[in-house]
């Protein structure tokens, strides 16, 4: 029994990281129906920026703030340069452009900083381990879970309780109509990228601390997994992304912990295929009828 609980806890912290990334995916998809494949790489940039701050001697919170701000600006820039002009043309063009941005970020980092594994300086995040009823919990687990919860709650507030959020929902519902109503679609999309990229940076720092390693391709796998989580929860839905991320993390931990460590990734992708076949709108997604 403690084994099972421990495995679920392992999955919960891994899943919270997925959730944080998935939220960013889902917001962008919600507003412009683009699967932003560069999202995973914004995470990586965030982890590097925070690492740079840490090496300069900044503490945890200031590093987080700098990384979030830098990536938020990077996100807006990516949207402006790589997506805005191709968006009206076709979804496929924007998707291709997203893959291009992803590769660009990976290899530009590799070119300037090398492909070496880097680590956060010792003592950047003081670690502690607690033991309860045969289960061990690290304060990193709590940090990851707490940060994800807080950020998702703030996001829910922004989306449902503010004017900006109202504009975002309007644009995601019908871009052209909201433009006719006087909403500036481009700036609303820019704000969405700003927020989702800032969250990606937070995820990057958490991921980097959790596994104590930073390298140019670190965003690739978690990015893909978070995409699965977003689809599982219902792409476009923020609570769905949170739920999908945690479910995926727990499933993976159980699979790996009970003899199937070689199939961990395979199971994740099988979930993706099954969701797409059986319930393409995901667990919490709304069934949208095709407009005629």
């Amino acid at each position, binding site marked *: 029994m403690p084994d099972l609980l421990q495995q679920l806890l*392992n999955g919960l912290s891994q899943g919270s990281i997925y959730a944080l990334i998935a939220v960013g995916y889902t917001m962008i998809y919600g507003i412009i129906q683009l699967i932003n494949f560069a999202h995973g790489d914004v995470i990586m940039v965030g982890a590097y920026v925070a690492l740079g701050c840490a090496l300069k001697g900044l503490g945890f919170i200031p590093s987080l703030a700098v990384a979030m701000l830098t990536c938020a600006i990077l996100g807006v820039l990516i949207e402006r340069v790589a997506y805005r002009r191709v968006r009206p043309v076709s979804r496929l063009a924007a998707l291709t452009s997203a893959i291009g941005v992803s590769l660009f970020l990976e290899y530009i980092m590799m070119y300037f900083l090398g*492909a070496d594994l880097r680590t956060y300086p010792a003592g950047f995040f003081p670690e502690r381990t607690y033991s309860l009823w045969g289960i*061990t919990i*690290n304060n990193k687990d709590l940090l990851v879970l707490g940060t994800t919860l807080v950020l998702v709650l703030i996001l829910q507030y922004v989306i449902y309780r503010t004017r900006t959020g109202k504009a975002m929902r309007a644009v995601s519902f019908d871009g052209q109509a909201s433009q006719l109503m006087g909403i500036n679609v481009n700036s609303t999309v820019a704000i969405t990228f700003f927020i989702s990229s800032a969250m990606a940076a937070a995820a990057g720092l958490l991921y980097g601390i959790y596994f104590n390693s930073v390298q140019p391709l670190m965003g690739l796998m978690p990015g893909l997994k978070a995409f699965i989580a977003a689809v599982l929860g219902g792409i476009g839905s923020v609570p769905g992304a949170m739920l999908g991320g945690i479910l995926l993390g727990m499933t993976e*931990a159980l699979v*790996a912990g*009970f003899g199937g460590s070689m199939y961990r990734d395979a199971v994740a992708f099988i979930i993706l295929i099954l969701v797409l076949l059986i319930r393409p709108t995901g667990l919490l997604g709304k069934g949208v009828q095709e407009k005629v």
Partner: protein
Amino acid sequence: MKKWVKVAALLVVVLALGLAAGCGGNAQKSAEGDTIKVGVNFELSGDVATYGTSCKNGILLAFEEINANGGVLGKKIEPLVQDNKSQNREARNIAERFVSEGVVAVLGPAVSGAVQTEEPVLTAAKIPVLAPAATAPEVTYDEKTKKVKDFIFRVCIIDPDQSQVMANYIYDVLGLKNGAIMVDKNNDYSVGLGETFKEYFTKKGGKIVAEEGFVSTDTAFKPQLTSIYSKKPDFIYVPAYYNQVGLIIKQAREMGIDLPIMGADGWDSPKLVELAGADNLNNCYFTNHYSVEDPSDLIQNFIKAYEKKYNTTPDAFAALGYDTAYLLAKAIEQAGSAEPEKIQQALENIEDFEGVTGKLSYDEKHNPIKEVSIIKLENGKQKLIKKMQPKH
């Protein structure tokens, strides 16, 4: 329209140039000129960058010393250094480039997989390869066809020697009887060590109570560790590369698993301490090719020279690289010529070559027979515990 024509024309020119560069070289495969060109093909960036970088540093130090003492056969050695980015495909591309540049021998890469990828290119060109650290048995010997790969020579011990010595040490000296094994299933080196370790350890009477695997891209190991720990082993054997071992040890200690953790030469990297944290590495052991604590003059002089040049203590990869370069120089001298095929013959007949990592002669499979060092980590520092001779 005109623009497209220009682009197409440019493409044709580029392709033509590429073809010319690709075909042109093969003819000049001799040691004409006043220097002896040697290919140095290593992992200077990427996943296992510290292995390749150390090997290269050791090699360049040795060549510098050799050239300062007048070179070999009156000629200076000219190392051509290339970075294969820890990618097998890139290692092969570099080997092809070396062939066209007319090198007399290729040193590297560090890891077995990359050496095996480049080998066909160099065997076809009849250029000998000296692999400082490729420990997988099949690098020099093809099990299926029962044939020795004539042009490959390694300087390190082979994997089964490492797992045998570790199994003996754990069972006889530490007296631990129940083990768990955790290997990287994507990596032949890791899988091979895991299999042979299990074989030797169970043959002695020990028991393997848990076996887990992971894939190279994994970063979360707590699920496997939880499962291993629930089977109550006395130790965990993790023969893998430092980038994963570091995370595994860190996560194990975070979960309160304070069992001894053992491994092999893939652990030897300064990054291991960074990744895992010095305290977490206490009660960890690994097998290696040499130890900086060895008091012999040859070893201590090498360490002094290396520290002076690079400001860091040489790890086993640096020592193996250093030996590799001197071995090549000795082979060229014995051959009396820097022609690749003569060097190959001289290497076959090398006897009792005295290196930093031990005395080297080749058995019939091009494998050196040498002692294995057992290293214990104490607060992130390596301590030599024992040297043991594997039985063949």
